[in-house]
């Protein structure tokens, strides 16, 4: 038994401190210890993107990170988007309206990758969107509507800036 480690980080806009085992994965910490089950596990080895979260604004795979790596960082999960305004809400709305959700298991990860993309590139082309979400597998095959949804968001964003 190895002693637990105390870590502190910002989770969905709230500062928290937790004690955790040094070998605990981020996804287990989030889902089991903190109840954030919107973060999904589908492969557990970095192949599918379902467990994507934002770490300091960049998309990361929570199945391949250790909890201790979160120390001092800002973490955003799908649950944290609900309290934010702006881009994230637009992305969520567009996914619903444009039919980008089927079974919904890949959806949280897909949305996190989308937000990461829009943070760095607010006006991506359809091909750039394809590339940005290519690490997120959607077995229902909703890609076309996911692309439509992200395109709609980017159009809305550029329109609102032009106003």
């Amino acid at each position, binding site marked *: 038994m190895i002693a637990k480690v105390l870590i502190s980080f910002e989770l969905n806009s709230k500062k928290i401190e937790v004690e955790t085992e040094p070998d605990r994965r981020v996804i287990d910490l989030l*889902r*089991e210890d903190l*109840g*954030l*089950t*919107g*973060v*999904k*596990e*589908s*492969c*557990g*080895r970095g*192949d*599918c993107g*379902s467990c994507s979260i934002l770490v300091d604004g960049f998309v990361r795979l929570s199945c391949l990170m250790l909890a201790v790596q979160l120390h001092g960082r800002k973490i955003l*999960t*799908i*649950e944290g*988007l*609900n309290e934010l305004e702006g881009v994230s809400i637009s992305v*969520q*709305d567009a*996914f*619903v*309206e444009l*039919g980008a*959700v*089927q*079974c*919904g*298991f*890949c*959806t*949280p990860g897909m*949305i996190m990758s989308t937000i990461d993309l829009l943070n760095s590139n607010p006006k991506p082309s359809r091909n750039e*969107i*394809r*590339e940005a*979400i*290519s*690490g*997120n*597998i*959607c*077995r*229902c*095959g*909703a*890609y*076309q*509507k*996911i*692309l439509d949804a992200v395109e709609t968001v980017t159009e809305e964003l550029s329109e609102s800036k032009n106003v």
Partner: protein
Amino acid sequence: MKFNSINIGSILCRPDALLKVSGEAKFAVDYYENNCVWAGVKRALEPHAILKNIDCVNALKIPGVLKVLTHKDVQGTNRQGVIRKDQPVLVNDKIRHCGDAVALVLAETKSDLSLAIDAVQIEMERLPAVTDIATALETDSHLVHEHNEKSNILLAGDITVGKGLAAANQCDVLVEAKFETQRQEHAYMETENGWAWLDDEGRINIVCSTQTPFRDRVEIAEALGIDPKNIRIIVPYVGGAFGGKDGITVQSLLALAAQHSEGRPVKMWWNREESFLSSVKRHPSMMSYRLGAKLDGTLHFLDVDISLDTGPYDHLGGVVLALAMEHSGGPYRIPNGLIRGKCVYTNNPVGGAFRGFGVTQVTSAMERAVDLLAEKLGMDRLELRLQNALKAGDRNFIGKTLITSTGIIECLETLSRHKLWRRKLSWKCGAPIFKKRGIGISAVMHASGYGPVVPDYANAKLELTENGKFRIYCGVVDMGQGNTTANIQIIGSLLNQPVGRIEVILPDTDKTLPSGSASASRCTYTFGNALVSAAGIMRERLCQKVADLLMIKDSNEFSMVPEAIRHLPTNREIRLETIARTMDLAEKVVIAHFRAPVATDLVTNDQEMRLHGIPHNLFSYSANLAYIEIDEITGKVGVQKYLTVSDCGKVVNPQLYDQQIQGGICQGLGLALYENFETLDGYVLTKDLSTYLVPTSMDVPDVESVALGIHEPSGPFGSKGIGEISTNGPLPTIANAIFDATGHMLKKSPIKPEAVLAALERNLSR
């Protein structure tokens, strides 16, 4: 929010999508109960062996390990299966594939569990594994099931059409080819899981990811020796299934674990590797085709021989074979021929239901044969298809008279008028350097429902709630296909209520009623029809109730309006909430039953074939077109355009319809070009999503989908099945496009760049 119309034919955004984009939607896997015990399975990891002993001593020494259960702890038959009960919950005599469950371990934590599973030792005597169809059929082959009447054959049958093989000689042109399709893994994002608990009354409650809660209950009961009434199954949102959750996965194991967890809740969650190892797959197939025609292109004869590798258990293998045989001649009139089929036991992974269900395999063969025939006849491939395409009143290849809407001709004609077909030559000629272009087409039919013997019904329950809303109790699982949304539209439009006034209860064997499986492209057709009846009864009852309250004679003067019932002559309204208060519970609930019409055509006297589903009554159709570009240097095939024209009846919700079309094509393209679940001598080589390549956003083109919206009189609002048909198109369409580009018909899938390169090289050496 936009798109919240409940009108049939309009887009209603899925109410569940709102929960799924916010992370609030709970899948079975998202429940972590207090004081939870983790359960896990020791897998055989051997394809064929006699089980000698299970040594649990070391496993039990590991701190945190609570129990190691074996077949000795199973009180019932220890056998599961849909048609034939041949799959053990826990192996008791013989290991028949690597994914067989041998022991069930209960532990305090996931890490204790994993250590203990490793520590369970299986003592066994290895047997030679039966790992291909040909070997399995040899007379001296080792037997997968020693007591099976027909050696390694699960089900075999043949159906003679017209003059049978004798008609081969009457053909002017005959083409012959052998096709082989691979084992395909469903790879649903939510792997198999669930949790269970024994309640105070001694009932076992299971929350799990399944397509078949009511059938599961009976299977678990028999296998474990429990009264089915003492099992409750609850199915929240399911993270994809595609046929792979059509039957038992974790259910019996969870129930067994709950019997031994001393009242504590039990959770089980297979990881990706375990899911790959243990779950059912699309049956690998070997298909021989001989297709013959008269000089004018009239199809005259077809001789088909289909063999499916079902692994060691039936699961739904026999039914898959029957559907494959039924569809082996595609959507064409073919007056003569022979259909032979067999489903063969091996020690490979278990074959089972997968979207397309046998039709995917035979369609890929038939449609390639049609292209080969067109070339030999010197005919246009679209003309040849149109000339022979089925219309209502025709008999299809197995001899079933088509009495439901039959739109394959309209599908093909619409395709022929589409710009992608008309501009194909100019596009093909515009190939850039080191690229070769080709255009492929295919015509597809796909049945829905269960066939003539297995009862195909649904029971819709509809309740007026205390606050005047309508609550739909649906026993048919929503694994992502969106039937919940269609149900809301049906009630909303028939009872004139906005979406916010309609609630849904997801499948729960205690609350909803048996309505069959979420499979066979039947969900909205069968349950929808029941729901339409329920809505009619409810409307009539409520209008009569209000008429009685107001002492107005004619209840026809009343109509439902949002949240109320209005007396049209006087505009007087009574709120539904008020009406609800005057009714007792029994009065507020309507239950309506629908039984799908079945075919009465006697196409075969073989009772086994009929039991397994031959023939069906209702079919959907599609015509497909793909533009592909081959990289001459690497052999990589890029799919540039994909058009599908479909006859799946009237469209209830165009967004849901598109989702089904696009998703099925995505999986079909995976089958055509990438996906291959590999084994060697029965051992599983494919263990993860980095070696099992499902299509990503980079691999699938935007699909153009044209829904013809032909009215099907027997369907709710004229609709019929949409769930599976699109999966069947891509493999033959892409193969035919490669044929168009290279002159070589590739007969083995997935069609890998190596095979395409070899085809190109054959051209160079000519």
